[in-house]
């Protein structure tokens, strides 16, 4: 099977004053295209840093990341942005919608960046899929947390990404709303064949993915395939 993400000997260190803090140390793993994959670990284990490096949001100090066949260390910031626009989707714990744009505009931005002519139509269709067609002209501040995360889901799938990174997607939601969002996430993932990488410390959510990578203190604890039906 084709690998969509290849991580080799990844390392990241932060310097705070005179102190050096190693956040990730020699991390290597890969992810099959179309798979579901979760990264788990306690707070401070380096999960979010790893996600940032895999998605090309940050630069590693050592090692390489090959995303969708491209070694991202060779790209400059704008090239990485373009790669994300064409191949990557994101979902964040605190939704990260653009506060000054309506739900519809939020969903259509990634498509507009690609220069797609039918961005609006696709965005309306996606909002329908997440059950928010009637709220398309509302601003994020006029939506509940669950609704905001569903808009974020619609945005994440709008550019038909090859890979989708979700950082604690249910972290800011109550259990019931969280469950609905997760169901929607997996449904859309199945429908589009996107690779899904979830960063979470919710083990129940992680168990619903085909693969779990456990981190502790910046190192891989286990890298385990799951039996998911």
């Amino acid at each position: 099977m084709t690998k969509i993400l290849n991580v080799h000997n990844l390392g990241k260190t932060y310097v705070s004053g005179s102190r050096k803090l190693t956040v990730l140390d020699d991390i290597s793993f890969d992810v099959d295209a179309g798979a579901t994959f979760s990264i788990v670990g306690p707070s401070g284990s380096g999960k979010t840093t790893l996600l940032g490096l895999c998605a090309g949001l940050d630069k590693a100090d050592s090692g390489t990341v090959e995303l969708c066949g491209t070694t991202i260390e060779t790209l400059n910031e704008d090239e990485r942005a373009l790669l994300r626009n064409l191949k990557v989707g994101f979902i964040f714990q605190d939704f990260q919608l653009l506060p000054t744009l309506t739900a519809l505009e939020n969903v259509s931005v990634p498509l507009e960046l690609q220069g797609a002519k039918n961005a609006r139509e696709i965005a309306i269709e996606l909002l329908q899929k997440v059950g928010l067609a009637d709220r398309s002209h509302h601003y994020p501040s006029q939506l509940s947390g669950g609704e905001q995360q569903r808009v974020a889901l619609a945005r994440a799938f709008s550019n038909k990404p090859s890979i989708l990174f979700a950082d604690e997607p249910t972290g800011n939601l109550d259990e019931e709303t969280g469950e609905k969002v997760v169901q929607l996430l997996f449904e859309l993932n199945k429908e589009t064949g996107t690779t899904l990488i979830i960063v979470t410390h919710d083990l129940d959510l992680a168990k619903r993915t085909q693969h779990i990578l456990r981190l502790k203190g910046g190192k891989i604890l286990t890298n385990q395939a799951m039996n998911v039906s």
Partner: protein
Amino acid sequence: MSDRPITSKADLNWVLKMAWRDGRASGKRLLLFMASIILGIAALVSIQSFSKNLKENIALQSKSLMGADYIIDTNQIPTERVQTIIDSLGADAQEVSFASMAAFPKNGAAKLVQVRGITSKFPFYGELETEPRSAASTYHKSDKALVDGTLMLQYGLKPGDSIKVGNSTFAIGGILKSVPGSSALSASFAPTVLLPYNQIEGTGLLQLGSRLDYNYYFKNDQEIDLKELNETLDPILNAENADLDTHISTSERLGRTYENFSKFLNLVAFIALLLGCVGIASSVYIYIKEKLRAVAILKCIGATRKQTFLIYLIQIAGMGLVGGLIGTILGLVLQQSFPVLLQDFLPFTVELSIDIQPILTGLLLGVFMSVLFALLPLMGTWYVSPLQVLRIQEGPLAPRKTILGILAGILLFIFGFSFWLLRDWRYALSFVMAILVTFSVLSGIAALFMKMVKKFFPSSWGFCARQSLLNLFRPNNQTMTLLLAIGVGSFLISTLYFTKDMLLAKASLENSSDNPNIILMDVQTDQKEAVINSIASTGLKILDNIPIITMRVANIKGIPVNTIRKDTTSAIKKWVLNHEFRVTYRDSLLPTEKLISGEFIKKIPSEGLVPISLSDNLARDAGVIVGDTLSFNVQGVLMKAIVGSIRQIDWARMRMNFNMVFPLGVLESAPQFHVLSTNSPNVKTSAKLQRELVREFPNVSVLDLRQVLLLVQGILNKISWVINFMAFFSILTGIIVLIGSVRTSKYQRIKESVLLRTLGAKNNQILKITALEYLYLGVLGSGIGILLSLVSSQLLAWFVFDSPFAPSWIPFLILLPGITVIVLLIGLGNSRSVLNSPPLQILRKEGV
């Protein structure tokens, strides 16, 4: 990847769309940024446009301003050579003018006026505006006088009443509203009385001592090249103490005078604009800081640095354009008020028209200055990392080189623009330096203040006082901006106030009976005793009795003045060569004089040259020191003298001061006249004395210093009104920047206030915290501004006005509390919504 295009497919249209979408939701805040520059632009455009109109009007009306194509003027009876030139050119009209007392038999009053006796053809261009209109053409035939309108009003005169000038009495033919070549301002010192030329002789005032001016007016019927005529004849005429002025050169000179004034006003307007730009920079800083998260999201989902940067750049530029547009329209409307504001200073009516250049300047400045001053905070969008969506990091910092580059750009722009306004790189550089110093001092003191508060934090203070003090250096605080806005505003107003104060103090009279307030000029030697007796009979004391002899410089250090005139490298000032000096002789120094070199010689020594004493400014302008020789032409007789001493004179004291003083024993027998002075305790005595003197001695001119001072005061008030009007823009801009800064930090303040309320703080505690915070800012900002203005006024006193400076308490007593109250009100107005609503409602409403 490497062979793929690295630009995103979204085009400029998308960037514009995003700028619009985002701006739509931030409209109110952008509006406030915009307001910061509107007034500055309005002030600049109005002045630029008016100056341009003024210049065009002067050029268009140059002939009617002079009333002729060219004039030859001299302040003595024309010499043979000058008369030959005048005759060969064929003067079309002539005038003799002088200052004299005029009496009004109707009410017995007397007043110093400017008598102008003119032949009938004048003016050839423009018109004599009179009421009734026909009086302008009939006064000559009927031998009547035309009298200045204000003077007629002051003394309750009507056409048909009479006016006595010298020995003659004339019927007033009409009210004189305007004469080519004189402004309301010049007429206010000595109002004009126009008489037929042939009637002047009969007044008996054309005698020694009278300061007569002879003007010969020419109409250029043969279409001579006036420039060439000026170049050929002027040097010849100058050598004969005459002068040629063409309508072109006169209008150019007039244009330059107004240009200087408009340059000054332009700078005041430019300061208002700069202040607005500081407001923009600070508001954009907070605005962009709050947008960085959104920028990171956009980058995360694929937007490039250029795209995100352009979104906000376009917003700011758009805001600058709209601000520039509104400011320009406002400026053009404002321009309409200028002719009214400046009517006393303009010798003609200004026709206003709309010119494209000031409009373009306004629009371009709006866009360019907004972008330039917003560039530093805007760079944040370029350097923010998409990782911000996952983890909040410290704000992105642009590289040092970029920051320095932008700051250099700002300074270069300020220099370039002021150079464009002033056309002199030294002045422009001084202006930039002055701006830098003012801003640095203000921000330096603000920084020092915050540091001191931190270091010596008054921990023992109550909760509210401590909390309000803490607010001054909270993250994202606006202390610096607020102090700059308040400080620069207060600095400007209070400097203007002190300057006006200084000018008025300089011109005020020392109120003691030993200081003259009435000066009698042109007293002939044979009249002297009679005049003294006449004054003594009213019970007043003669304070000065000064003989005056008129003379001109004939040569300096052995070189004839004509040779010096031709020498283009000579540093000797032209006025020294052309001036008719009024000289006196005495044996002692006055209390207003100080010897700075040489020895003051009381009496002429038995042998050698005549040792004279010069004022330091004359010695400097004539390029002589003690021991140098000078020759004078004393009414036809040549006299050699040597510089015996140099005196420093306190010209600010209103005394009869002289540039040149001779020792006793030289000039006693020369033709001379006298100046007497006395002190009249009140206006009534002064009026009575003037009436009597004018009746008995019609040739004696009486200068009432009280009246002169009132006039000076009136003029200064008018000028300061115009300057205050411009300073008002700076102050209003300061207030807008203040409102902008306060509003920008509103969300943060509200969050804190709500938190405090949630924790149980009462409304009046929150109110107290806010009130105290703005009180500190108001007192500190205006206090520093006023203190700084003390320094600048002292510098002005030393270097410009050359007079002592005793600051008044008014700025401290009125300005400081006034500005503080405004700051307080703005601050409290901002937190009203916090106090009146429940915490949750505010959080929901404000949460964007």
